[in-house]
């Protein structure tokens, strides 16, 4: 028996060493989300179910890494693609989880989880816009789903093309980019135009291969940025006249991650620069927005604050580690930067 004792002692001792090796998982309790700040929606990694919502508080300059799970006790799910604020609510579109999380903008508390399923097959929502108390959501099943923002229920589905990406509202119509991404290698090259009073597709326009971003300016133009096939076909920009619904210009264009604020259309280039296309002058007015030498490895999304003129750019770095959000003043000088989650793909600015 005495020979066994040391073994037992070793076993038990080792077990305790192991137990003490468990690290604490830090959970920061969050009670109040201030009224001025911004949300960064981090996609996380495909199939890792790790989308997070970073919150940056302008007042105390504190960042909460995942305010959604801290407040709601569960994660956002897989691949948060879009976040938009409408009224007092914030809508977070989670693609593979096939849901739209509706939260109270001020508290980040979940109000509703709108699941988008066709039977038990995920419809995979992608991008959201609002018009007259309705939300319009592109879904990878080739539709735009109409959601009543009062009842938060899913109504009609409008059939568009394959793998629709972004959409925008202009002149009482909806412009939807049909990328065809899931039909790889057979990308699409169309934009569906939907009449918002009848919710029907009135026209399908041909643009560059693999359209992704759609924005509208104040001069009756809808800009469609196509990614090409990432190989031999390059990216291109089509400009649609939202009155006649015709493509009035179409040209090769080195850009992605397009966003508009007033007359400034921000986009990033293949050289990882942030540039501005002016909607009024219809030219690139500001090549190289960043003036202080700040280097961004992988610019992932750009957003501008219309009031302050600040520009926010995220850096996805190597796509598998935490990213950074940079804030620049209107002259392109860095104000501050914060660490955000993996693949920070969308920013929502909280306004009072």
């Amino acid at each position, binding site marked *: 028996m005495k020979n066994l004792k040391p073994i037992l002692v070793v076993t038990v001792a080792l077990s305790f060493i192991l137990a003490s090796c468990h690290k604490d*998982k830090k959970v920061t309790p969050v009670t109040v989300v201030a009224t001025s700040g911004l949300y960064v929606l981090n996609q996380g990694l495909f*199939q890792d*179910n*790790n989308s997070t919502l970073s919150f940056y508080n302008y007042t105390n300059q504190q960042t909460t890494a995942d305010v959604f799970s801290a407040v709601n*006790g569960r994660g956002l799910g897989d691949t948060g693609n879009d976040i938009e604020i409408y009224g007092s609510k914030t809508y977070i579109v989670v693609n593979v989880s096939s849901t739209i999380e509706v939260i109270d903008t001020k508290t980040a508390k979940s109000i509703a989880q709108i699941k988008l399923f066709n039977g038990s097959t995920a419809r995979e929502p992608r991008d959201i816009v609002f018009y007259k108390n309705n939300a319009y959501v592109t879904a990878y099943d080739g539709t735009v789903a109409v959601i009543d923002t009062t009842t938060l229920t899913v109504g009609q589905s409008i059939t568009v093309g394959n793998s629709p990406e972004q959409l925008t509202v202009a002149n009482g119509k909806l412009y939807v980019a049909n990328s065809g991404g899931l039909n790889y290698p057979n990308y699409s090259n169309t934009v569906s135009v939907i009449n918002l009073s009848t919710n029907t597709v009135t026209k399908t326009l041909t643009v560059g291969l693999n359209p992704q971003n759609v924005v509208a300016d104040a001069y009756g133009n809808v800009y469609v940025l196509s990614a090409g096939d990432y190989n031999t076909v390059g990216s291109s920009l089509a400009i649609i006249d939202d009155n006649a619904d015709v493509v009035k210009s179409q040209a090769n264009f080195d850009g992605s991650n397009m966003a508009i604020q007033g007359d400034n259309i921000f986009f990033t280039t293949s050289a990882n620069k942030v540039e501005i296309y002016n909607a009024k002058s219809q030219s690139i007015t500001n090549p190289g927005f960043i003036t202080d030498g700040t280097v961004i490895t992988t610019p992932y999304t750009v957003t501008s604050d219309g009031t302050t003129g600040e520009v926010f750019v995220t850096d996805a770095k*190597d796509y598998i580690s*935490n990213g950074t959000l940079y804030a620049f003043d209107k002259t392109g000088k860095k104000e501050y930067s914060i660490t955000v989650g993996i693949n920070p793909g969308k920013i929502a600015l909280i306004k009072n």
Partner: protein
Amino acid sequence: MHKVLPYVKRYIYRLSVLLVCFFALPCLVFAQTDTTKKLKEVKVNGSNLPKIQTITPSQQITANDFDRYSALNVADAIRDFSGVNIKDYGGIGGLKTVSIRGFSANHTAILYDGVEINDDENGQIDLSKLNLSGIQQITLYNAQPDDILAPARSFASASIISIKTLKPSLTADKPYQILAGVKAGSFGLINPYLQWQQRINDKWSFIVNSYLENANGHYKYKTNINGPDTTLTRNNTAVRDQQVDGALYWTKNDSNKFNLHINYYNSDRGLPAAILNTNPTSYQRLWNKDFFLQSSYEYTWNNGLHLLLNTKLSQYITRYRDPSYLNDQGGLDDSYTQREFYQSAALDYHIFSNWEVSYATDVSFSNLGAYSPDGPIYKYAFPSRFTLLNMLASNFTIGKWRFQGDLLNTYVNEQVKFGKPTPQETVLSPTLMALFKPFKTQDLQFRAFYKDIFREPTFDEQYYFTLDGSRDLKPEFAKQYDLGVTYRKSIDKFIDYVAFTVDGYYNTITNKIVVEPNQNIALSTIINLGKVRIEGTDIGIKTQTRKTNGWRGVMALNYTYQYAVDVDLGPYYLQQIPYTPKNTLAVNAGIEYNQMGLYFNQVVSSSRYFLGQSIPENYVDGYAVSDLSYVYKFSAYGYPFAFSAHADNLFNENYVIVRSFPMPGRSFICSLQIKI
């Protein structure tokens, strides 16, 4: 402290109690024997010392012990080994791959009767597909096997798992033996198997192993994806597979023998996907049709020159279907066909009785085709690979020392139908080993090895969904330094023996191949990124009592400490390598009484991170999981029977090994086998 700690403590407490019970029981019996039967001689079986580890660290499990570890497949059988980290996606059909001493599964070669189960497509063998039917013994060698007469491929990986199947050894009196059994239980599992051994004459014999496995695979798991502690049932987990393995043996004598294996495996299974918020349902299916033909011939001349020839032809067909993928074709439906021809010749000669040299040369041609229902997959490379290995090895003994070393030359050349192939490669890989045995009469040995090896990028890494046909990946290099000591000793009338082994190791990986997944498959990238440093310690203790009045206690303990970090400057500097726990402990303890045995197995793993940054968001809890198994051998109707029953995850621990892939709770499997 996080909430896992109380659970771990509870299990450790239970473990300790069980251990104490297991050992107290035979002690009590023994004590009784001592006092009341002093004059009667206690019947004691002879010592049964385990095989001592030699020049490289090795750990072994034989068929008799599979039940002791509640093992259903090769992954279960080796999960207690030190240095082993099984990446288990959960359930009957869940993928199970092995990482050894911090290296990815691609650095471990699996030998089936001496010949590698090679997969150039993804390089990670799914151990859940390797049923234990017909397997006689599994040995894990760090670095390489210690016998230098072997195919060059045995020396071409960082670690080797060597699977040996049962060879028929029947006499003319009873020229056949049939083993029939069935395993059944939780997951709707039913797994009948049959083994037929036949002696044809004094030279020829054969053995056929076959089984069917059917399971719905369902199990309940707790998750917080929809809020705290929801219980869901794992779906799309059904498994249907069949395997036949036939082996024909011809043995003229010990120095002239031949065998031929034919193996066919067919499987159809659901692929349970990652549990995603609000969308935990998967519709993906996987079909495998694997076939191989393998033969081996061995001849020894009178002068001691020893020849070993091995040949293998294989074809692996994999079909993957995901009907929920939202393309216009109504889903993905891809098929892959991988074929290989492999030939190895090895020669071994003793120049002096203490100096042995060997030479082995292996050639292999492999190719991979990828098809969708409409034809070849768009822009797929259709790669073919030619590999030539040349290996010179030597083994030299002098006094208390033994030295072994080899030099391996690898030449790889690839061709593609589309795009550009990986540039051809020639790599020289040395291994040096030494063993020192200071005392003639003591089983105490010191050993050290250095091994420098690499792995080729797999076809998937190199060519899967590339935009211009190929990624320019470099091979991933793995260097190992090991220093160890082994000791074993017969003790006394009560403790049969104690065997003890400790190894400290230092490993490095350069040009680590890292996958950066993207939802848009075309944008996924795979690159050579980073350096890894692994510092570790493996400890193994094995002991058993002598059989006393039919009673025997057995125990094995394995512990691994691993500090595996990225050492490239950048966001991952000194961050723990994903899915590499710092501490793992496996304890197996049992008590046997005549033909019965009751065993308790526990595997404890500390926390891990599922991505490269060791930050709270990437944290995966540690776990402690326990199994209990019972084995009973008996005779009925004049035939020997074996019955076993296991309760796996005895305490119904809710845990994951791979993030978002929940493991089953408590489950039960019984088996009954008859030998005719």
